[in-house]
């Protein structure tokens, strides 16, 4: 066990934790931030993606020790009230079906648009191919991302 400090959604948190624990489980079980989802546990599906110092990272395979001292943003911290342009566009395009993968989808899209406000179609495809959706909402995800770009970005 070790004491680790994290900055999660703007708040500093100090935790007693096994340093090998994936960040995902620290968020979900210790910090009560269940918006970040467990699905595959091996970095394959993207449901668990959060921002670590602004980069989209798969929290299910990221030991919490690697996130120590870094700034972490989860879906709960993307906006205070669901007003982030991507959250709004996801509603406008009615993207979610079961909704389980959507926090991961949005966090990947947010990281992409933060870095690349006007991505090419290929850049969008490359980024979004990291997150699986069994309901097949991809076409609407694409529309929602273009909606945000067309309306001035994030």
């Amino acid at each position, binding site marked *: 066990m070790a004491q680790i400090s994290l900055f999660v959604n703007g708040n500093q948190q100090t935790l007693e934790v096994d340093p090998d624990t994936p960040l995902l489980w620290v968020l979900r079980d210790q910090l009560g931030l269940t918006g970040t989802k467990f699905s595959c546990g091996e970095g394959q599906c993207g449901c668990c993606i959060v921002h670590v110092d602004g980069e989209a990272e798969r929290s299910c395979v990221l030991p919490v020790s690697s996130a120590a001292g870094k700034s972490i943003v989860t879906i709960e911290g993307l906006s205070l009230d669901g007003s982030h342009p991507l959250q709004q566009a996801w509603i406008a395009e*009615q993207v979610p079906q079961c909704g389980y993968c959507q926090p991961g989808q949005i966090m990947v899209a947010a990281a992409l648009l933060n870095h690349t406000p006007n991505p090419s179609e290929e850049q969008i495809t490359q980024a979004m191919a990291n997150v699986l959706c069994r309901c*097949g909402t*991809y076409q609407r995800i694409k529309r929602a991302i273009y909606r945000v770009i067309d309306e001035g970005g994030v």
Partner: protein
Amino acid sequence: MDISRRDFLKATFVGGSGLVIAVYLAGCKRLPGGSEATDVPGAGDSLSFAAGTPGSETILGETGAAPMVEEISAVEPPAELVPNIFVKIGADGLVTIISHRSEMGQGVRTALPMIVADELGANWNDVGVEQGLADTAYGSQGTGGSLSVQTCFTMLRKAGALGRQILINAAAQTWGLEASDCYAENSLVIHRPSGQQLSFGPLVGLASTLPLPPASQVSLKDPAEFKIIGTSKGRVDNADILTGKAVFGMDVRLPGMLYAAVARCPVIGGKAASYDDTAARQVPGVREVVQIDNGIAVVAEQTYQALRAKALLKVTWDPGANASLNSADLEQELLDRANFTPPAEGEFVQNYIVPYFAHATMEPMNCTSDVKADGCELWVPTQNSQLVLTNVAFSVLKTSPDKVKVHVPLIGGAFGRRLEEGPAGLPVSVDYVREAVQISQAVQAPVHLVWTRQDDFGHDMYHPLSVTQVKARGDQIKTLTMRRLEVSASIPVGYWRSVTNIPEAFAHESFVDEFALETGVDPVELRRSFLSPRAQAVVDMAAEMAGWGSPMPAGSARGIAYHAAWGVTHVAQVAEVTLSGNEIRVPRVFCAVDCGLVINPDMVVAQMESGIIFGMTAALKEFMPIENGAAMRTSFRDYPILRFDEIPQVEVQIVLSSEAPTGIGEMGNPPTAPAIANAVFALTGQRLRRLPLRLV
């Protein structure tokens, strides 16, 4: 007045994340009136009126709320009108509608309340949705077969209409005017001749004292008057889903809850013979290791501790009867059986093979169970909450059903995995529920059981391997017959989105295409000779959308398929196919659908888009080989599903119809594989009769 504990607003803190679930039950006002007024379940049932809405709950809190444990025990509930178990109207004008079916992405928590709200005459903006607990008072809560709208439409219209009539009667009495001159719209009762209006809220006090109107007074709207039905309404859960507040089964947190993981025999149906948990117990946070029916369970303070400890268990497995089972052998056995009788003279015969598929829901199986001395409370992402309840009560806890309470959170994909009980003697699809209950019983604490992705792929109730044989006399498509052969091996199989429609559509629609080309008739024209007018209309619409018959660019081709799953919803699709080496690409799919009267048009479109992607995954990607009794694909690495970079552009058109509404959830995927296979033949001359389609 003797007010029972049930009648109070009850707020209970349920966990570190601060999720507050309130079970709120309506006022104590007992309405006189007989159950003859309507055939809505619970209407006129004195229990329903005394206790308000049985078995419903709403999630009030959100992640991050301050922990509290509170029971408010002396508050007079606010006035509320509860005409039946599906609807409550508050004195504040807010309308609460109960969704008694499970939401897993198909939009039922939006569509069913739309039906009630429209007949009630409510403004959709005034409507909130609560999830019903498992309760036979609702009738069936099994959510499958694309049946919810289809079978609940009239019942829910009556539920809303009854509420409307009570409110109209209250307004008429207030005004001293004739009820028959009033109508309700936009959460207002309006007196047609004078234009006077009263909003629902202020009418609730009086309305809740009035007798139930007789059935003769409760009439359903003329569909031409629908205001909500037929308009696209956004999904009620989206805001919560997109901010991380939505509570899926995986997100349930209770005070004092422990986390569990189960080590299972890799061979399906195998059992633990013995185990050594010395190393597992050394993992910090591990509280208990217990043997249950399906394996060895590790219980810990956090999920990761349970997963780590599970990996350290040394288990000797007894693989049981399946140890020598191979799906390749089973497939050959089916083909041998299918081909046992040689074709008759002039008979055209083909076999079509569909392999085992996994459900691969993004949310793995999970269940939260709190077994106490006097019963059990469960939070289960299930399509069949009443089945969960009775199975746990009768078969696990050996108690009466009233001792078991089942909450249904949001479900991160289901596709049939969370629906059925399964055949006797085989593992049942409430397997994960039974495990959680057994573990909670053993450790005497609330337990949140998490299946890993490997558990989920390796211990699914797979779509069954099948061979479908289709035959027809060489010149007569109307002589077409089909028979489907499945193995009776002890591999657990179950419902999988659209169930038998998958092999039926693949076989039938591939065969029709083959027959058309054999006999030199255009596949769209051939269908004209045997399809019903409604079916032919969607075929014609899809063909027109795709420009059927117009030339395609070199290196691409079209294929068409039609299917009505369970004979109810007519869907035709045209797929365009190109190749990249030997890999099949699908740049566009055109889809026409006739599902009768449409409740929520955008949801119909969304379900067709979803079905097509699901169908394409079955056509091109997924299959689950079984070798020596074990599922050989246990990761998205080797069980790929369609990704963002592989999707077609999908266009959907809905046929306008005033026929009775049917279903949509499982209607989109059956035609996709045969449409692609037919396009592949048109492009390459290779007829592929086995899923997933592989060019040689």
